[in-house]
């Protein structure tokens, strides 16, 4: 489903920094992969390279057979196949909850208003927010906003969902409701790449865990492997700090 080969990314501002250094990874259809690692290790950068919000400097990325980095690739239609959920929600504050979930469908997928609204209501019901359809994002709690953001991404019928620390900006009591939605997605067989510090989620749902540090994937394996017998010294150190 996703294949990254020797992906590197350099930032020049404020100074030259190798944020990703020859990262390779493969994610199959229906797989849930959790990426963990210390702050600044390049997790977000890697995730953002997958839908070209950051343009990788070298290497290859294929998503569902599409070469994301090729010049002739229509990146907009490629992105429509990948849902992205951000740490800071990034809902559109000038649109209602319902409009947030329909706008992509009508503008990008060219669905009729009617069809888009039906789909949006179904998704909002699914994340438990049908009653908030007419509200504006600013009037919602963080957990509710993030669930709307997930519905917004799902409305495009994506083949992959990318999550960048979806619960890090939430108050502790709201983390659960968002994780529940993500777990149900995973159970339904959605292909998911999730950057998170929620080890419980990783243990329960992940098929595979990748540990990143200093722009590289240092270790990968099943959750059991990670939580029982990590091999790399830095993995051990990281896990001992957060568990």
């Amino acid at each position: 489903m996703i294949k990254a080969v020797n992906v590197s990314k350099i930032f020049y501002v404020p100074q030259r920094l190798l944020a990703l250094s020859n990262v390779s990874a493969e994610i199959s259809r229906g797989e849930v992969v959790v990426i963990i690692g210390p702050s600044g290790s390049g997790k977000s950068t890697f995730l953002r390279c997958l839908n070209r919000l950051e343009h990788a400097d070298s290497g290859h990325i294929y998503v569902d057979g599409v070469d994301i980095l090729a010049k002739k690739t229509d990146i907009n239609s490629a992105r429509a196949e990948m849902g992205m959920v951000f740490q800071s929600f990034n809902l559109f504050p000038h649109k209602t909850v319902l409009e947030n979930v329909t706008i992509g469908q009508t503008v990008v997928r060219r669905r009729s208003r009617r069809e888009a609204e039906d789909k949006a209501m179904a998704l909002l019901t699914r994340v438990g927010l049908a009653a908030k359809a007419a509200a504006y994002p600013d009037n919602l709690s963080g957990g509710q906003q993030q669930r709307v953001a997930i519905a917004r991404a799902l409305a495009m019928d994506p083949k992959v969902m990318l999550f960048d620390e979806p619960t890090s900006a939430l108050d502790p009591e709201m983390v659960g409701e968002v994780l529940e939605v993500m777990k149900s997605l995973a159970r339904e067989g959605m292909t998911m790449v999730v950057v998170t510090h929620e080890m419980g989620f990783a243990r329960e749902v992940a098929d595979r865990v990748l540990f990143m540090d200093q722009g590289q994937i240092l270790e990968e394996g099943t959750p059991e492997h990670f939580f029982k017998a990590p091999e790399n010294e830095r993995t051990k150190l990281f896990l001992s700090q957060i568990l």
Partner: protein
Amino acid sequence: MSSGRRRHSLAYELFWKAAFVVSLIGVCWMLYAATQKIDYVWRWYRVPQYFVSERVIEVKSGIQGEVASIAPEGENVSVVVAGDGEEETHLVPAKGLRVGKGDAVYPGDVLGGEKKIVPGILIEGTWLTLYVSAVSIFFGIILGLFTGLSRLSDNPFLRWWSITYIELIRGSPLLVQIYIWYFVLGTLINNLLNKSDLPQIPTLWFGIASMAVFTGAYVAEIVRAGIQSIHRGQSEAARSLGMNAYQSMRHIVLPQAFRRILPPLAGQFISLIKDSSLLGIIAIRELTKATREVVTVSLQPFEIFFVCSLLYLLLTFGLSLLTNYLERKLVQS
């Protein structure tokens, strides 16, 4: 603002409000007293004629002869004057007809006429100021939007042109720019048009061009700042839904930027209305030039200049009411 203000006793409030009114009256009285000292005679009754004036329109015969026929034609009557082998037909307002069938008329004789209420110089000037401002604002917005977006573009051609334009315009006085539009570009363009037997462009349009181009540069900076004030996460969210750059601008970024842009934009347009007073120097008879003409004929400069400033206040205040209304509407939606 008022939330941060201290609450005072009623007596305190009343005292200082009264003090305000009294001092306001005092300032006006002192001004009046000063004009009395120099024996200035206030003649406010002379002002209204510059708002509306009566004009007598007379229809005169061009030939010698007699009135051959009078036939009604709607509100008017058509009068045929027949002379020595020549004939003339005139349209005269029915109410103001002053000849009868068979009357002898000589060249210059009045066949009929009417009094018409026409707008005075000050109203014409106000109208022209409004017109010039509205048209300049319209083109200024288009120019500013395009330039503001170009300023943020990745393309160096667009970016450098927009920077050049913005810096050039903001770096010199509007007065000089009006001179350049009129004396340099105007002369060039109209001479070239003349050489190719094309009609000339009237001065008014060089005036409008100078105002629109001037405003466009400021609008561009307002637009740029407005767009940059919208968090990057917004366009990233839009783009990751698969929207292209245009769609993300159109549906997500610009609508949000517009709300923040509106107040500074209104300020810019209020300046524009006031700056249009400079157009008098290239013989465009907007409100200020009209006022100066009225001063010359009426010899009542004090009244007329006050009236002029009140008319500007009316225009600018109208515009701020309009933007307040728009702002409230935007917040509701």
